[in-house]
């Protein structure tokens, strides 16, 4: 079973994000870049399938050179090969262009399953997985918490939480799955794994290698334009509930939740 994991490098979720002077992007100095946490679930699931069925895990990513580090992390966890699509012309690409480039890199590979995170934790678009499935013309399951590949390795069942219920869907392979928290607990990259990672195959591809038109990607090719980024509103001051007895306080709290906070 050959599995592809698409990986995005995002700012560490503990990073203090600052909006750049242009109002449309963030300040990238001093950011600690990490693998998108949803993609870690993809790597882990792919490795488990490899352990069960054999085959190879290939990690595909798009972005500047620094993304190499995140691919190496996946290789250290146990993935077999890395591919980085890196080209100055890709700078500023929207989700659709990203999916197009990923599809161009993946289409000729031999694969049974593709994992992408259900979204990147940076801009929370959640578009790449679906678009990629479309471009590759494979079935897609989104926001999946459990993956069961049939013993014969020819079909997959995927569990998706829906309002407290579980929807189980099935498809033939190849297919694309977008991962949700709860799918698994990603493993540590072991120390021998880290040492071995640098010797594993790693390829870099440009737009020319993929036969893509630079005009259709990058800032110029965007179909979705970012108009403005705004910081979340400052949190207001807390309110202390007054009252003589617990009953009085509870009644006041219920009233405020209903009338002011409008939570019910």
């Amino acid at each position, binding site marked *: 079973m050959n599995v592809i994991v698409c990986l995005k490098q995002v700012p560490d979720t503990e990073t203090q994000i600052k909006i750049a002077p242009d109002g449309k992007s963030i300040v990238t100095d001093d950011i600690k870049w990490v693998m998108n946490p949803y993609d870690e679930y993809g790597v882990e699931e792919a490795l488990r399938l490899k352990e069960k069925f054999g085959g190879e895990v290939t990690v595909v990513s798009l972005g500047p050179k620094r993304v190499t*580090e995140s691919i*190496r*992390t996946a290789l*250290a966890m146990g993935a077999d090969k890395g591919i980085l699509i890196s080209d100055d012309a890709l700078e500023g690409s929207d989700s659709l262009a990203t999916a197009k480039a990923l599809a161009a890199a993946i289409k000729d590979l031999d694969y049974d399953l593709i994992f992408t995170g259900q979204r990147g934790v940076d801009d929370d678009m959640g578009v790449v997985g679906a678009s990629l499935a479309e471009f590759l013309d494979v079935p897609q399951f989104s926001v999946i918490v459990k993956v069961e590949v049939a013993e014969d390795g020819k079909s997959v069942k995927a569990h998706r939480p829906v309002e407290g219920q579980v929807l189980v869907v099935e498809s033939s392979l190849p297919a694309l799955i977008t991962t949700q928290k709860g799918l698994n607990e990603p493993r*540590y*990259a*072991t*120390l*021998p*794994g*880290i*040492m071995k*990672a*640098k010797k594993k195959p790693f390829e870099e591809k440009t737009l020319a290698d993929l036969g893509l038109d630079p005009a259709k990607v990058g800032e110029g090719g965007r179909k979705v334009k970012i108009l403005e980024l705004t910081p979340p509103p400052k949190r207001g001051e807390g309110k202390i509930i007054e009252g003589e007895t617990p009953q009085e306080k509870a009644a006041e709290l219920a009233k405020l939740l209903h009338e002011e906070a409008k939570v019910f």
Partner: protein
Amino acid sequence: MIDFSLTSDQKRLLELARDFSEKEIRPVALEYDRDGTYPEAILKKAHELGLMYTNIPEEYGGSGMDYVTHYVVTEALNYDCCAIGQMIGISHLSTGAILFGGTEEQKKKFLGRMTESYRSSCYCLTEPGAGSDAGAMRTMAKKTSDGYVINGSKCYITNGRDSDLLCLFATTDRTLGTKGICCFAVPRDTPGISVGRVEDKMGHRALTVTEIFFENVELGRENLIGEEGQGFKLAMMALDRGRVNIMAVCTAIAQKAFDEASNWAREREQFGQPIGNFQAIQFMLADIYALILATRAMYLHMGWMLDQNIRCTVEAASGKFFATDAAMKVTTDAVQILGGSGYMKGTVVEKLMRDAKLTQIFEGTNQINRMVSGRGILSKQCIQF
């Protein structure tokens, strides 16, 4: 060229060690300290991830790290609990002598077994009557036609109870002092070995320390590491590296205490402002930070010396007492900054202060380390910068 930047591999290894400490050690550190728990599950996981036996070369199944990387990883592994961190670290001290003095065959046999699946080890040097004065060792290795018979007892042996392999020091001739000492690699299942009392300690409570008794323990020639009489030299070689290790451990202890104290100084308010606004607290934090910078620079420097095969006996002895005295001062001051909250049982800084005390005592008391250093200085063994 002096370059303190870490390579991307080193960064990743550091991240692994930090992650491991945060997720596996931090959640249980205070509980294990309270109960004196043997951290078996953590040790097994560390072994699985390759964090144990980082000193053993790849050909014997270890990860063959250079010393600088090894110490950087050690600091990270000891940040949340130095007792648990050193239960991982003791494996390096115990296998050190075998690595330096063993033949190819011995390394394959003894070290290969340690790395192939989870096995732990201990370093048996100290005796009731032979602490700093290793030459007063009484454990006897009596020569026989095809090997040795060991009789005697050891005390304060870290991980003594649960070890699979013992790095044992014993003498063939007590009149020879340190020159009679031999080093043996002894599998724990050799008949005649028994474990005595498990000590109840003030600090380092998750680190098991025991007595070990040897009664007519028969060993073959293949258990002798190096030549007869080379044991003391091998013990000291392992200790040189172990002392640099202690410096990294102490840097971790001090860093943790510093983080606790500086967070407290920012948050704790008295007289209507954070106590960090007061110069008295600022000066303490500044002194603490300077010591951390110094101890970290020292272990990196000595790690580099070891990587260049530069002998660092005097430097490791000096660094050992400096870093451990620093850890003691820093943790005492951290308790002072936290005040009543820091003195209460079950708080982090209180544990750190108890833990720090042992570092001034083990792997050579700070007094014997000052003697080693002083003698080395007078016999011109220090490095020229």
